[in-house]
């Protein structure tokens, strides 16, 4: 119970920070102050809050869980590629969006798209697609909160209650503190979970009696040795993952965060330190996730390994629903928590649990971004701000925060997928496919609203198609994929144990390429915006 009490103290602290920010607000009624902290964040808060907002439950629980099942490949798949692609997009896109926001007062990406391409309802369609894709991200946070509190309390706090507590705390400080509260909480959380990785590595390493013998033992086990290499993952699949980080800059909450910097110089530290911050958190988590396979005296870990073994050896003969159950049983989202329970002293397990909660609760920025988008892109755009005033707009934003959190909580209770799969398959791929919108808006004079519409509709259709395909065709047992369509021996469409493959690539690759092609082709044959509009962007 002691670790759970420490985590509850942590939750009280972040709640206090959010409410403190509410008291510091310049005006509780001004939209720009509530939603963007008056575009005044300093360098330290900007770096840590921008990084923290992009790290979710996924960074600690998902990474170690994925590494537990797939091995060291997890780091190269997500962390190192993100360490290159995300700062590059912040460097090229984030700085430009910041400058346009300062010049023209934009508060959301859709406001910029509407102005850049002289469109109205097409902007609303982009808003809808962004909103639908963002909700799974919020669900991940709530699911991670439930999983964490349940594991830290040794099962005393049930999943549904843990999720509810996390949802309530996040909702409260976003509700009161707006962007300022969210940024401060994110900064506090980022410092916590950056410390988490190093401390967890040392504590668990000492507890295990060093990692050298554990790695040697894994290497001599035929079932575990592949986890120390990447032989279970195809190079095409590995390459596909480098497209996923394109999603970061297309996520509205990241782009909106880019608008909060006081000066553009604040981006410098962010792009330089971003790869190192990712390494500090992901490297220990991935390594510990792999090492969890050598912990034989934790019954929950043994049960996961047994489920994995049954799936691998008898999976082909089992019905799909039994395979799904085994997959869920073998999922390692809580292995790092189990390791802490096994090796860390109680008080330290509590502190480290708070570090995990810090990562888990990054859904605050997504909730605030959705609220900002709703009030600016729908409420204000359709004339309600003029009619009811700015105070009502901020009130609407707060009501929206309550409603979206409640909705995400209800869905989180029903969602059967593991944290990692849910995030990757829907939100990340979809936002990566929307990234050509930003590139075209900022760097190509010839892009048009019809190109933007084609890209957006394609993204929505492709995400829906992948979701429907995966719900109709059951995942095969570990091993060869189920080929659904082939031409001349080439596998066009396959159902893999982990998802879908198109020509051996993850769906995100064709999604992004077709998205970009649609933007180019449709823009070439449709009318460009007026010269006066273009002059605002390409002076």
């Amino acid at each position, binding site marked *: 119970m002691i670790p759970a009490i420490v985590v509850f103290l942590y939750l009280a602290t972040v709640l206090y920070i959010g409410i403190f920010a509410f008291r510091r607000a310049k005006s509780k009624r001004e939209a720009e102050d509530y939603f963007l902290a008056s575009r005044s964040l300093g360098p330290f808060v900007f770096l840590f809050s921008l990084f923290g907002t992009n790290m979710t439950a996924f960074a600690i629980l998902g990474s170690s869980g994925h590494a537990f099942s797939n091995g060291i490949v997890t780091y*190269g798949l997500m962390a*190192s*590629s993100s*360490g*290159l692609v995300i700062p590059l997009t912040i460097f090229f896109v984030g700085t430009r969006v910041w400058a346009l926001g300062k010049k023209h007062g934009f508060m959301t990406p859709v406001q910029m798209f509407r102005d850049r391409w002289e469109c109205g309802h097409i902007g609303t369609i982009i808003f809808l697609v962004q909103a639908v894709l963002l909700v799974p991200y919020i669900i991940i946070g709530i699911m991670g909160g439930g999983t964490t509190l349940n594991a830290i309390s040794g099962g005393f706090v049930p999943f549904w209650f843990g999720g509810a507590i996390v949802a309530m705390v996040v909702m409260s400080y976003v509700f009161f503190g707006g962007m300022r509260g969210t940024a401060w909480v994110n900064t506090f959380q980022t410092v916590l979970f950056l410390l988490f990785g190093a401390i967890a590595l040392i504590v668990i390493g000492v507890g295990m009696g060093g990692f050298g013998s554990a790695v040697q033992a894994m290497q001599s086990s035929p079932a575990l040795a592949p986890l120390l290499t990447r032989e279970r993952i195809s190079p095409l699949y590995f390459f596909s993952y480098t497209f996923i980080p394109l999603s970061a800059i297309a996520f509205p909450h990241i782009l909106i965060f880019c608008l909060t910097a006081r000066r*553009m110089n604040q981006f*410098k530290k962010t792009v330089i330190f971003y790869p190192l911050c990712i390494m500090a958190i992901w490297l220990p988590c991935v390594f510990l996730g792999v090492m969890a396979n050598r912990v034989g005296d934790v019954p929950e870990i043994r049960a996961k390994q047994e489920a994995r073994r049954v799936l691998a050896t008898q999976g082909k003969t089992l019905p799909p629903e039994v395979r799904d159950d085994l997959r869920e049983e073998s999922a390692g989202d809580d292995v790092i928590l189990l390791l802490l329970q096994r090796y860390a002293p109680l008080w330290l397990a509590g502190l480290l649990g708070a570090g995990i909660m810090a990562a888990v609760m990054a859904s605050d920025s997504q909730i605030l971004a959705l609220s900002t988008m709703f009030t600016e892109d729908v409420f204000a755009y359709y004339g309600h701000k003029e009619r009811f005033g700015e105070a009502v707009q901020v009130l609407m934003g707060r009501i929206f925060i309550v409603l979206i959190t409640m909705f995400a909580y209800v869905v989180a209770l029903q969602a059967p997928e593991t944290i990692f799969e849910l995030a990757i398959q829907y939100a990340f791929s979809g936002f990566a496919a929307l990234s050509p919108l930003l590139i075209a808006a900022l760097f190509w004079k010839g892009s048009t609203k019809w190109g933007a519409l084609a890209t957006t509709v394609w993204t929505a259709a492709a995400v829906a198609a992948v979701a429907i395909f995966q719900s109709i065709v059951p995942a095969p047992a570990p091993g060869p994929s189920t080929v659904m369509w082939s031409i001349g021996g080439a596998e066009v469409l396959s159902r893999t144990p982990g998802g879908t493959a198109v020509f051996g690539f993850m769906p995100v690759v064709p999604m992004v390429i077709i998205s970009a092609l649609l933007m180019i082709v449709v823009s070439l044959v449709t009318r460009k915006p007026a010269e006066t509009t273009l002059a605002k962007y390409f002076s």
Partner: protein
Amino acid sequence: MKKLFLALAVITLYVLHQDFWFWRTAYPLVFGFVPVGLFYQACFSVAAALLMWLLVKFAWPGHLEREVEQHRDEEDAA
């Protein structure tokens, strides 16, 4: 020339991410316990940070901030 060099550096680092040469081996174990594939990718993260430093140093879009200041001055004057 500077920009061409930086563009080549970005492309090279992206290509180097696909380290197929360490695909099927864990050896050598760096520091006695880190599989070489994981160590390589950690070094890749450090290289990415160095590349970002080069971009900030030699290709920083400072004109954007000057445009913002100019725009603000024009608004104040109006």
